């Protein structure tokens, strides 16, 4: 599947998507690629919709395949939502405040039909000061950490999130903040609990981030979450900007407080360019004119073309407040606990060599 077609599928239904979809059924091998990409990129909801409304021409058999794949994706979403309800119940019983992030929250709050928006894991934000309690609660309920933390207390103080696995082998990302590296440290995650957007799920009332913060989180995820911006995150951005009444002044105010203007500008431009959108937006005008400074460009590179966890960690140091905190962060990176590395001196040296390489790379690029 060529990138424009993948983007056209992901843009289906947007007010100003201009990319075109096939007007006659694709040959079998191309159709297989379309299905595979829609599954991997989690854009199957829009593919199924486009097939159903006739925008994407298919044979009857191809249409059935798309619908079946969509139903499978929705089955997974439901299983994950059951997990989400269990997690929320556990955290609530333990008195841990929380906000549902991404997948289920965005599907229910930002789309006219949650069936359009698949997801592959559960993401929940908890306050940093309650992070250890949240992890202990989940471990006691049978969840397993993907790996030990770098040093005791590291995740509560410095990590973006901790990945846990449920007894049914389902993934849960427990977040302390919304992004790794400097951009994550620059935002005050505690503020995210001052407001919320409620939604109902399985008879329960859950809390997600407020709309402006949900939008900014989508931007952070799109730009900082992986080397190549995920189509799903870009679609979320377009969806929130074009179909919801976002308070753009509020977005800009929060973004400035988070020192995330470079992320916001890049996310908006990427979204418009990827989907070939023509809809005017004051935020787009601002984004196209925004010029990140050298420090921001360096940090963005650490999350994109020059992506490495080590480099991202190094970018974080400047944003960590207090000398003791900085030293604790660096000490954990330099001397992780044995449980984190596993057995054997070789693992320690490999870890250290990777860190040194990241430092050299960061200094070289910086």
């Amino acid at each position, binding site marked *: 599947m060529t990138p424009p077609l993948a983007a056209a599928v992901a843009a289906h239904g947007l007010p100003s998507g201009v990319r075109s979809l096939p007007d006659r059924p694709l040959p079998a091998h191309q159709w297989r690629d379309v299905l595979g990409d829609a599954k991997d990129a989690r854009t199957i909801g829009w593919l*199924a*919709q486009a*097939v*159903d409304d006739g925008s994407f021409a298919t044979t009857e058999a191809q249409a*059935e395949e*798309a*619908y*079946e794949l*969509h*139903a499978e994706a*929705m*089955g997974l*979403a*439901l*299983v994950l*939502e*059951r997990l989400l309800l269990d997690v929320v119940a556990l955290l609530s019983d333990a008195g841990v405040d929380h906000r549902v992030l991404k997948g289920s929250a965005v599907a229910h709050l930002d789309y006219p*039909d*949650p*069936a359009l928006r698949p997801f592959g894991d559960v993401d929940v934000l908890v306050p940093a000061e309650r992070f250890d309690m949240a992890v202990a609660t989940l471990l006691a309920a049978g969840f397993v950490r993907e790996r030990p933390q770098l040093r005791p207390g590291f995740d509560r103080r410095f990590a973006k999130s901790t990945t846990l696995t449920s007894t*049914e082998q389902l993934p849960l990302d427990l977040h302390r903040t919304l992004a790794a590296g400097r951009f994550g440290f620059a935002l005050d995650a505690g503020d995210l609990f001052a407001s919320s957007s409620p939604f109902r*799920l*399985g*008879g329960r009332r859950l809390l997600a981030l407020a709309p402006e913060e949900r939008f900014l989180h989508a931007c952070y995820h799109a730009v900082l979450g992986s080397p190549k911006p995920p189509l799903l995150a870009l679609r979320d951005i377009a969806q929130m900007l074009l179909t919801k009444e976002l308070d753009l002044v509020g977005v800009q105010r929060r973004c400035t407080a988070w020192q995330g203007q470079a992320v916001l500008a890049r996310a908006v431009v990427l979204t418009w360019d990827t989907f070939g959108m023509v809809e005017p937006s004051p935020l787009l005008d601002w984004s196209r004119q925004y010029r990140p400074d050298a420090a921001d460009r360096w940090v963005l590179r650490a999350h994109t073309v020059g992506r490495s966890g080590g480099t991202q960690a190094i970018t974080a140091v400047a944003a960590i407040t207090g000398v003791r905190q900085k030293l604790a962060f660096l000490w954990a990176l330099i001397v992780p606990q044995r449980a984190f590395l596993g057995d054997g001196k070789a693992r320690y040296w490999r870890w250290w060599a990777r860190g040194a390489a990241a430092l050299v790379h960061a200094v070289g690029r910086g």
Partner: protein
Amino acid sequence: MSKGGGAGLRWVRAEGVLWRRTQAAIVMLTAEAREPFSLTGSGRSLWDVLGDPIDEHALCLRLARLHGADVALVAPAVRQVLGDLARRGAVVQQP
């Protein structure tokens, strides 16, 4: 499901059931189940109607009208599906 269709009782979706409507099916997961299951065909319109409480006779009439079918033919199928959904915990009866 109560015997005789639960006279005076109305059927409605269970509060705890999670579900999605897709082009081919209603995919759902009940509070008791580990695996999702699907309602296909005319079961999709039955699920739509169950968004609000409705007694079985009225449900059969609605579906018969919707699908242009004889209510006498629709009723046994509706009862069977309701029984299955109730066993799975996807629908409940209420006064």
